C-alpha cells in the first residue's frame, strides 16, 4: 500500500473504534430517537467489519 492508503487505513480503524465507543456511551445518556441513532453508531464497527469482509472476500486480495 502507498503511504496515503496506509494512513487512510489507520484513520479508518481509529474512526471505527471511536464511533463504537461514542455509540455505546451515547445510548446510556440519550433517550428516544437519539438513543436509536447511537445504537446505529454502536453497531457500526460490526456492520462495517462485515461489509469489508464481504468486499475483501470478493476481491480476494492477497498482499
Amino acid at each position, binding site marked *: 500500500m502507498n503511504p496515503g492508503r496506509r494512513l487512510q487505513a489507520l484513520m479508518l480503524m481509529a474512526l471505527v473504534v471511536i*464511533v463504537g*465507543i461514542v455509540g455505546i*456511551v451515547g445510548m*446510556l445518556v440519550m433517550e428516544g430517537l437519539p438513543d436509536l441513532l447511537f*445504537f446505529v453508531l454502536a*453497531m457500526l464497527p460490526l456492520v462495517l467489519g462485515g*461489509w469489508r469482509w464481504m468486499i475483501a472476500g470478493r476481491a480476494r*486480495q492477497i498482499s
Partner: protein
Amino acid sequence: MSGAGSRWFRINLWLHRWTSLIATLPFLILCLTGTVLIFHEEVDYLLGVVPEAKSRGFDASLPLSESVAAVKAAYPDERIMSVGIDPDHHPGVLLVVTAPKLEPGFQAAELRFTDIATGELIGDPEQGITLTGFLLELHAEWFLGPWGELVGALIALLVLVSLLSGMVVYAPYVKRVAFGVLRKGKGARLLQLDLHNFIGAMVLGWALVVTVTGLLLGFNNLAIGVWQITGLSDFRAEADAMMPVDALEPPVNLDKVFEVATATAKPGWQVSSVVFPATEFSSPRHYTVLLVGSEGLEERMFSVAFVDAATGEVPVALDLPLYLKAITLSQPLHFGDYGGLPLKILWTLCTWLTLFITANGAWLWWNRRRRRRPEEVATEVAA
C-alpha cells in the same frame, strides 16, 4: 519509530503476548459467565426465580411496615438489614435483606420478597442462590468475597494492557494488509492471524469500554470504604457520639423514612433502598437512604440521605463523589443492560467474537512456539 522492528514495537508485542496469555483462562471464564449475565433477567424469568406481585404498582395504601413485620414474623431469628424497590424489574415487590440478629455485615445476608400490596411474603424461601447469582459471584468476585473484586480488577488491567499494546502491534500490520482481508491459501497460521487482527479491530471499541468499566467495578467496595473514611468521617463521628437506637425496632418506621427522604430529595428523585441502622453501611443511629433519579443519566446515579432513626430528621443529604459516580455508571456500560434486547444481542456478539480472538490468539502463540524460533516472531507478525 513504530515500525515492526523498533524497540517500542517489540516491547508492545511482548506485553500483548504475555498479558493476553496470563489472562486467557480467567478471561474465557469471564466471557462465558458474562454471556449468561447479559441475559440475567430473561434467564431468571425462564427459571421461575423472579417473585411476582399480584399488584404490579407501588401501592402506598398498605404501609411498608406491614411487609417488614411479615418478614420479621417469618424469620424471628433474623433482623432487617435493608429494603429496596425496583419498579422496572420487580414491580410491586419489596426486596428485603435479612441477616442473623446483631450481625452488622451483609456477608450472611439473605434476600426475601414481599408483595407490597398485600404485605405477604412471596417467592420460594428455600430457593437458595440462583444460577445467575452463582455466575455473578464467579464473574465479579471469583468466590473470594470483596477481595475477589480486586482479582477481577487485576484481570481487567491485564486485558487493558493487552488491548492497548495490541493497538501498537496492529498499526504496522494494517498498513500492509487492508482491513477485512483474509489471506486464504497461505496456511492456517496467516489466516488465523488475519482473523485475530480483523475481529480484534472490530470489537476494540466495545472491548475498551467493557474492560475499563470492569476495572472500575473491581474497586467498588474499596471506593465505598474510602468514601466512608474520607467524605463521611465527620458525620460518622457525630453519629457515633449520639445515643444509638434499637436496630431491631427503630423508633422511626420505614414508611416515615420513605416520606422524609422523598420530601427532602431533589425533584424527580425517589427512594431506591433503605439500609437500617447499625450495619456496615449505616450508623448506629441513622438509616442510610439511597435515592435514584428518574430520567437519563440520573436513572443510573445515586444520592444518599441519612435519616435519624430517633427523630425522623435528615441531617445529611449528599451526592456521591466523582469516583463513585464513575463506578456507578460503569455497571450498565459493563453489562450492556440499558438498551433492551438489541443492545444485549450486540453485547453477546462482541463477547463471542472476543472469546474467539482470545482462544485464537493463544493458538497463534502455541503454534509459533511449536514451529518457529523466537527471533522470527517480529518478522512474522509484521507479515
